[in-house]
C-alpha cells in the first residue's frame, strides 16, 4: 500500500492550517485539520497586567470577532470585581456585540459566496456584500468607537453613549442595511443556482451534539464550565495510525470538548437550540448563519430604540482588587469563554481563553468524511472562515 500526495489550494479562509484528507474513490474517508499559525500567546501575554490593558489586548486576538473577546473579557473582570454595568451599558454592549456578529457574518459571506453563487455573478455579489459591510462598519464606529477593536467596550459597561445625531444616523443606516441584506439573502438562497461545492454541502447530512448559551449575548449559567476540557491537537490524534506525524508536530492548537464529547458551536447550534432550526446538512450551517443576520439587525434596532442618551452607560468608580471571574459570550462562530484570576494588587494572575474554533476543529474533521475531494475545501469554510489556516489540502490516495 502506498500513499500519494497531491496538493490542492484552499483559499478564502483566514489564517494558516493544513487540511489533510485521505480519500478513496474520490471521496474523503478521513480528514485532519491542523492549524499551524504561530501562537501569540495572549493568556501569557496578559499576566501581571492591569485589567484596562487586558481588555484592549484581547480585542486584538481576532480581527473578525474583536468585540466578542472584548465583551467576554469585560464580563469576566466585572464578575471578579463584583460590579454590574447600568442598563444602558448592557443595551449598548449587546448592540456592539451584535454589530460585530453581522460584520463577521457578512465578511464570511464575501468569502464563501463563490461556492454558492454562479461564477459569473459572484464578483458583483461580493462587491455588494462589501459595500453593505461598510455601512455596518460605519454603525459600529458610531456606537463602538471604531469599526474594528471598538474601544468603547470597557470594564463596567460602555465608555460613552452615542450622540443623538449618531444614534439617529445609525438607526437609519441599519434600516437600509436590513433591506439590502434581505435582497442579498434572496440571491444566495436560490438553491437551484448553487455551485457544485454548495451542492455537495447540501447533500452531506451531518449533525452533532450542539452547545449554545444564548441567542444574542451569552449566558455563563447555561454552561457547566467543569465539563469543558482542552487537549493538545497532537495528543488527541496520537493513537490514530493515519494521522500525518510530520504535521502533528507543527499543530498550534488545542481541541476543546464538552462533557468529553465533540460539540458543534456557532450559528446552527444557536438556531437549533433556541429557534427550532432543524437543518441537518452542511449547507444548513451556512443557512443558519445567514438567518442570524436579519435577526441580529432587528434586535439591534429594538435595542437602539430603548437607548437613553442621557443615562449612565458605565460604572464610574472601579476598584481593582483580588477576585475571579468568568465571561461567556456567543461570538459569531460560537461559545467563547474567558476566565480571569486577579491577584491581591488587582493585576492578572492567570487568564484562560477557550475559543469556538477549538470546539469546531474536530467537528470539521468529522463533517468532511464522505465529501467529494473537489468540494473538500468548502467544509472548513462553511464552519469557520476564521480558523487560522493556510492553503493546502494534501490528498493522500490509498492504492
Amino acid at each position: 500500500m502506498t500513499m500519494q500526495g497531491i496538493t490542492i489550494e484552499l483559499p478564502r479562509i483566514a489564517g494558516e492550517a493544513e487540511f489533510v484528507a485521505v480519500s478513496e474513490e474520490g471521496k474523503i474517508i478521513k480528514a485532519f485539520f491542523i492549524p499551524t499559525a504561530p501562537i501569540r500567546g495572549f493568556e501569557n501575554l496578559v499576566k501581571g497586567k492591569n485589567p484596562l490593558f487586558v481588555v484592549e489586548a484581547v480585542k486584538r486576538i481576532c480581527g473578525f470577532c474583536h468585540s466578542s473577546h472584548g465583551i467576554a473579557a469585560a464580563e469576566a473582570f466585572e464578575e471578579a470585581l463584583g460590579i454590574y454595568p447600568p442598563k444602558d451599558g448592557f443595551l449598548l454592549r449587546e448592540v456592539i456585540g451584535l454589530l460585530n456578529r453581522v460584520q463577521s457574518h457578512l465578511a464570511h459571506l464575501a468569502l464563501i459566496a463563490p461556492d454558492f453563487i454562479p461564477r459569473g455573478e459572484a464578483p458583483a455579489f461580493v462587491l455588494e456584500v462589501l459595500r453593505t459591510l461598510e455601512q455596518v462598519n460605519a454603525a459600529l464606529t458610531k456606537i463602538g468607537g471604531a469599526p474594528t477593536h471598538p474601544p468603547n467596550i470597557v470594564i463596567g459597561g460602555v465608555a460613552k453613549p452615542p450622540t443623538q445625531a449618531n444614534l439617529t444616523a445609525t438607526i437609519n443606516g441599519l434600516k437600509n442595511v436590513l433591506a439590502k441584506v434581505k435582497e442579498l439573502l434572496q440571491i444566495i438562497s436560490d438553491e437551484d443556482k448553487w455551485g457544485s461545492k454548495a451542492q455537495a454541502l447540501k447533500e452531506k447530512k451531518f449533525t452533532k451534539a450542539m452547545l449554545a448559551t444564548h441567542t444574542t449575548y451569552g449566558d455563563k449559567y447555561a454552561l457547566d464550565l467543569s465539563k469543558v476540557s482542552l487537549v493538545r491537537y497532537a495528543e488527541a490524534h496520537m493513537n490514530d495510525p493515519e494521522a500525518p506525524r510530520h504535521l502533528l508536530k507543527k499543530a498550534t492548537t488545542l481541541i476543546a470538548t464538552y462533557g468529553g464529547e465533540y460539540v458543534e458551536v456557532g450559528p446552527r447550534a444557536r438556531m437549533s437550540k433556541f429557534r427550532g432550526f432543524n437543518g441537518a446538512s452542511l449547507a444548513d450551517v451556512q443557512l443558519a448563519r445567514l438567518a442570524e443576520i436579519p435577526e441580529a439587525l432587528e434586535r439591534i434596532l429594538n435595542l437602539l430604540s430603548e437607548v437613553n442618551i442621557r443615562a449612565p452607560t458605565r460604572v464610574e468608580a472601579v476598584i481593582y482588587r483580588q477576585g475571579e471571574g468568568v465571561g461567556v459570550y456567543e461570538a459569531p462562530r460560537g461559545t467563547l469563554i474567558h476566565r480571569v484570576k486577579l491577584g491581591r494588587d488587582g493585576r492578572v494572575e492567570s487568564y484562560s481563553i477557550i475559543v469556538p474554533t477549538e470546539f469546531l476543529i474536530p467537528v470539521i474533521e468529522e463533517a468532511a468524511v464522505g465529501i467529494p475531494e473537489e468540494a473538500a475545501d468548502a467544509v472548513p469554510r462553511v464552519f469557520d472562515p476564521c480558523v487560522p489556516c493556510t492553503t493546502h489540502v494534501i490528498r493522500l490516495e490509498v492504492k
Partner: protein
Amino acid sequence: MAERKIKVLHVDVGGCEGCASLVLRTLPLLRDRFEIHSKYVEDEVSLKDRYDIALVTGSICLNDEEEVSKLREIRNAADIVVALGSCAAVGGVTLFARGGQEPKPEHRVWQPISTVIEVDYVMPGCPPAPVAVKTLLENIVSGKGYFLNLFASAAKMRKFSGYDLMDDVVLTGLCVGCGACVLSCPTNALQMIDRHPDLIPEKCIRCGTCYVRCPRASQLMIKRFLVKPKVLGGGGRA
C-alpha cells in the same frame, strides 16, 4: 493602450486578521487601478509570481522558521513592500508576547517585519483606515505625495508608540496641543488635560498610530530618517 493595473500582493504572516479584513474593505476603493492578489479573494496566490507592491499584515514570530522564510519570499516577489497595520509596522500589541503558551511555548519573540526584511513603507494603525491605504498606494504609483516621506521614514525608525510620543514631543515641550494624537488613538489611551496630551500607560498597546499622526513627531521622524522613497515610476507601466 489601456493602462496596466498595478499588481498588489497581500499576505498575512501572523496577526489578528483585522488588517486582512481591512484589505477586504479596501477592495471596492482599489479595484479600478489595482489588481489585488490575496487568498481572501482568489483561489490561487503564488509567491513565485512578480508583483509591483506587497502589502504584508501581521508581525513576524522570529521562532517560526516557516513564517520567516515566507516573509523573505514575499520580499523577493515584490518591487515595493508595505508593512500594513501596527503589528507589521512596529510590532504593536504582539511586542508584549512572551511565549510559554501551549501547544507551542517556543513561539516567544514577535517583531515588526522590518526586523527580517527591508521594508519600503510602514503604515501603523490598528487597523489603518481604508482611505489611507488607498492614498498611500496612489502616492506610490504617482511618485508624489506627503505619505511617501512619512511612511518611508517610519520604515527606518521601526520603534514608536505612545510612550515615544510623550518622550519626544509632549515632555520636551514641542506639543502644539492640536489633539490629533487623541483622535487617532484606537484604545482611548490618550486624553487632553489643559491642552496637553496625557498617556494612560496601561491602555497603550504600542500601535504607533499617534506618533505618525502627530504633526511634530512626524516632522521629527522625516527629518531624522529622510530617505528617497521608492516609487513605481509614475503610473502604471504598459
